[in-house]
């Protein structure tokens, strides 16, 4: 199964790419599981780190009502 990152040949996940990161969070702002994202373990870790950086900098919400 291919995922968004592999399909678009994205090797590094940047915390500033908010539109890309929004693909990996649910409407409540929580990270989706690997089962749902279809990412490899390495990619999932990179996405998690990027989302957490984006949250800290106020680019993404911690929680969404």
């Amino acid at each position, binding site marked *: 199964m291919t995922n*968004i990152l592999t399909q*678009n040949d*994205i090797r*590094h*996940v*940047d*915390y*500033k*790419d908010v*539109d*890309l990161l*929004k*693909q990996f969070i649910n409407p409540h702002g929580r990270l989706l599981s690997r089962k749902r994202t279809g990412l490899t373990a390495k990619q999932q870790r990179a996405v998690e780190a990027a989302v957490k*950086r984006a*949250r*800290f*900098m*106020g*680019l*993404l*919400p*911690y929680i969404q009502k």
Partner: protein
Amino acid sequence: MAEEAVKEMETDTDTGIARIYEIGYTIMPTVKGEDLETIVGGIRSEIGKAGGDFIAEGSPSIIRLAYPMSAEEGDKHLEHDRAYFGWIKFEADVAAVRMLEEMLKKNASIMRFIVFRTVREDTRAKMKAPTLREVKRTDTIQVRPRRAEEQAGPVSEEKLERAIQDITAE
């Protein structure tokens, strides 16, 4: 074998090795345009002073924050829903980065900052994230009628009565 491991550990902790770092920062929205330049200039000069090389930069622009961020202004705590966000990618050694972190902590105009190791190449994704609706305003949506158009026109009373009788007979 053991010597090699020790050597590797030494090189890891060696502060002289230049590495690629990126700093992201949010500046208070109350800062004026001219002061913004001096703040960013201060960060740049600090990197330059420590012997760092610039790789890329994103100039600060005002963004709407995903959640209200509290910041101290004087002795008051204020919440901001907007801030100037910018970033700088540079090459420097660990000691330079530590100095830079100390300098950023002292700066009261900087609400938050983040420093982390990255790679030299551009990490921004080239793709356009797919959106739910990719329909342009100029696109015309053709709708086919669900059933064949009925014949319009006046219907004679005889035909109408016959039709009613057919229905009631059933």
